C-alpha cells in the first residue's frame, strides 16, 4: 500500500504479526504498519478490514513503539468478529492517529488516577506505558480496575509487574463473588471509596462501558474531584476520525477530533452525552 500521506481517508497497510488471547472475548492484535504510526497515548486509529469496514480503537501499546502497534479488541460486532478470526500473516489497514489523546501535559507533579472497566483497560494501557516510561510524567499512579469475572480480567499477566512499581498502586475487582477470586468484589466504583489521593492534585482518567463512565464520574464528583480534573474516554461514535463526517457530534464537540477523551466539565450538562 503506498499512498499520499496527506490523504487520511486512505489506510496504510499493516501486517498482523501476532494474536494474543487475553480473555475468552478479548484478543490483542500485534500489527506492523508499512510505515511507522506515531501516536500519543489516547489517540486512536481506524482499523480496516478490506471489504468489511473499519472500527476505531486506541492502541494498547506504547506510544514509543510506532513500528509495532498493539490493538486490544473485544469481540462485539461485524468488524470485531471478523478480526477475532484472523491469524498472523493477515493484511489489514490502519488510518490515523486521530484525536487529541490524554492530557498528559497536565500530569507532571500530579497524581493520576486510572479507572478502567473491562476492555476499557486497553486504551489506558497506552497511557500506563507512557507514565511508566518516564518518572517525571506524573507523581503517583493509582490504577483501579474492574471486570465482570476473573476470566474477563484483561492483561492479567501484567498486574504483578504494574503493582511492583514504585509510585504505582494497582487494584482489581470483579462484579460478583467467584470461586477463583479472593480479591475485592463489587463494581469498580466501590474501589473509589478509600483512595489515598487528594482530588485537588490528582487527574482522573477513565475508560469503560458508558454506564460505568457515568457512575465513575458521579462518584469522583462525590468524593471531591472537580469536573475539570476528570477525563472520560468517549471511545464510541467515531467514523471518519477527522471531524468531517459529523457522526460523533455532541454539543459543540466532535469526539474524534476534540476527544476521544473529554473533560467532564465540558460534557456534564450536555443531554445524552453519557447515554
Amino acid at each position, binding site marked *: 500500500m503506498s499512498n499520499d500521506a496527506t490523504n487520511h481517508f486512505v489506510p496504510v497497510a499493516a501486517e498482523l504479526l501476532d494474536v494474543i488471547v487475553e480473555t475468552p472475548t478479548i484478543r490483542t492484535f500485534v500489527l506492523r504498519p508499512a510505515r511507522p504510526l506515531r501516536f500519543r497515548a489516547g489517540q486512536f486509529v481506524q482499523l480496516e478490514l478490506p471489504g468489511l469496514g473499519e472500527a476505531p480503537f486506541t492502541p494498547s501499546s506504547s506510544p514509543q513503539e510506532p513500528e509495532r502497534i498493539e490493538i486490544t479488541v473485544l469481540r462485539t460486532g461485524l468488524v470485531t468478529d471478523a478480526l477475532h478470526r484472523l491469524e498472523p500473516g493477515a493484511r489489514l489497514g490502519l488510518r490515523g492517529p486521530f484525536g487529541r489523546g490524554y492530557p498528559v501535559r497536565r500530569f507532571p507533579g500530579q497524581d493520576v488516577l486510572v479507572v478502567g472497566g473491562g476492555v476499557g483497560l486497553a486504551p489506558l494501557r497506552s497511557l500506563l506505558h507512557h507514565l511508566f516510561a518516564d518518572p517525571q510524567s506524573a507523581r503517583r499512579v493509582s490504577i483501579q480496575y474492574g471486570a465482570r469475572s476473573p476470566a474477563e480480567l484483561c492483561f492479567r499477566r501484567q498486574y504483578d509487574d504494574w503493582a511492583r512499581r514504585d509510585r504505582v498502586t494497582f487494584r482489581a475487582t470483579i462484579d460478583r463473588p467467584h470461586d477463583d477470586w479472593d480479591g475485592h468484589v463489587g463494581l469498580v466504583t466501590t474501589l473509589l471509596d478509600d483512595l489515598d489521593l487528594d482530588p485537588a492534585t490528582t487527574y482522573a482518567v477513565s475508560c469503560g462501558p458508558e454506564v460505568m463512565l457515568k457512575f465513575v464520574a458521579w462518584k469522583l464528583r462525590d468524593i471531591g474531584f472537580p469536573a475539570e480534573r476528570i477525563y472520560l474516554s468517549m471511545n464510541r461514535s467515531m467514523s471518519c476520525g477527522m471531524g468531517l463526517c*459529523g457522526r460523533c457530534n455532541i454539543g459543540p464537540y466532535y469526539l474524534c477530533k476534540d476527544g476521544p477523551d473529554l473533560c467532564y466539565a465540558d460534557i456534564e450538562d450536555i443531554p445524552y452525552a453519557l447515554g
Partner: protein
Amino acid sequence: MTPTRVLIDRSGLDALIATLAAQGYRVLGPTLGRDAIVLGDVAGTDDLPVGWTDEQEAGHYRLRRRDDAALFGYVLGPHSFKRFLYPPRQRLWSVSRGSGPDLEVRAEPHDDRPLAFLGVRPCEIAAMRIQERVLTGGEFPDPSYADRYGRAFVVAVQCTEPGGTCFCASMRTGPRAGTDCDLALTELLGPDRHDLLVEVRTPRGEQIVAGLPAREATDADVATANEALARAEASMGRSLDTEGIVELLERNIESPAWGKVADRCLACANCTSVCPTCFCTTVEDTTDLTGQHAERWRRWDSCFNRDFSFIAGSLIRHSTRSRYRQWMTHKLSAWHRQFGTSGCVGCGRCITWCPVGIDITHEVDSIRNHERSASTFHTVGGRYR
C-alpha cells in the same frame, strides 16, 4: 483594461458558457427537470429554464410559466451545488489483493475537468464557503473538496426576485454576492430591455469577460441593478431572528418546543438532503464476488436517520425530538462554536421541501416564545457548556 462592469445580452451569456467549456470547464447550472428546476450540464442558454419561475412555500413547490423570457426568473430548486463539490456518493479508495499477501490500495484520483457553476445564488456561495471551512479548514482537509472547490469557476446571479421561503437577508448572505465568486450577474429585465450586468470579481473572471461580446455598463445600469437588489432585500419571504441565537439554543435544550416540532417531524431527512451546508456522511465497503477487490464509498447521511447515531453498540439519539434538536442546534448554534459561522445561509430549501412544512424560522420563534412565557415563573434550562 476590461472595465469591471459590462453588460451582456443572452448571446453574451451563450458566449460565456462556450468560453468556459472551451477552457476545459464542465459547466453546470439550472435546468428544467420534470417538475422542478435541477442542476445539470449547460451547453448554452437554451438549457436554462428560460421563462419559468418557481412558486415556493412551506412544503410547497410548483413550476409556473412567466410572461417574459427571464433567464434566471426563479430561485432555488432542491439541488445545491454541494452535489458536485461533495457528491452524494463518492469512492474514496479501492484495494486489490495481488498474487502475494500484500494489498494494493489506490486513492481515488481527482477529477480531470474543473467545474464551472453558472447561476449560483449568493446564499449558495455562502454555503460553499461554509463547507470549505468545515471540510478543508481543519487538521485533516478533505482532498477532493479542496481540489474541486479550489478549481471551480463561479458565476453568481444576484437575486432580484426572492422566493417565498427565502430568508438570506436575515442571515446576511444575500441577495448581493460578495467577493467569493469570479463573476456576479444581475438580470435587468424591463419592457424595453433584457440585459445582464456582469461585475468582475477576480482576475480569472476578468480574463473570461475580456473575450465576450459586451457593452460598457453605465452608472444608470448599475443604479438599476442596485435598486432591484434593495427591493429584493426588503421583500424576503421570511426572516430568521438570529439575535443571541447561539446562547438561546444552548439555554433551551429542554424546551417544550422540541416536543411540539417532533410531533410533526417525520424524520425523513429531506431537509438535510436539500441543505447546502449539511455535510454528514457515512461510509460503506463493498467487495466483488472474488473477494480480491474492495472499495470504500462515502455517501450522504443525515442526523435524522436513526442509525446515524449508532456505532459500537449504542444509539445516542433515540427520538425524533432528539434528532430534530440535534439538527437545529448544530446548524444554528454549535456550528458557531465549531466553525465561527452559522451553518444556515437562509436558502429556505428545508422549509420548501419539508413534507409537513416545518419552518426553521418559526421554530426559532417558538423556542423564544416558550422561554419568554416560562421565565415568567422560573428560569428554564441549564448550562450547556
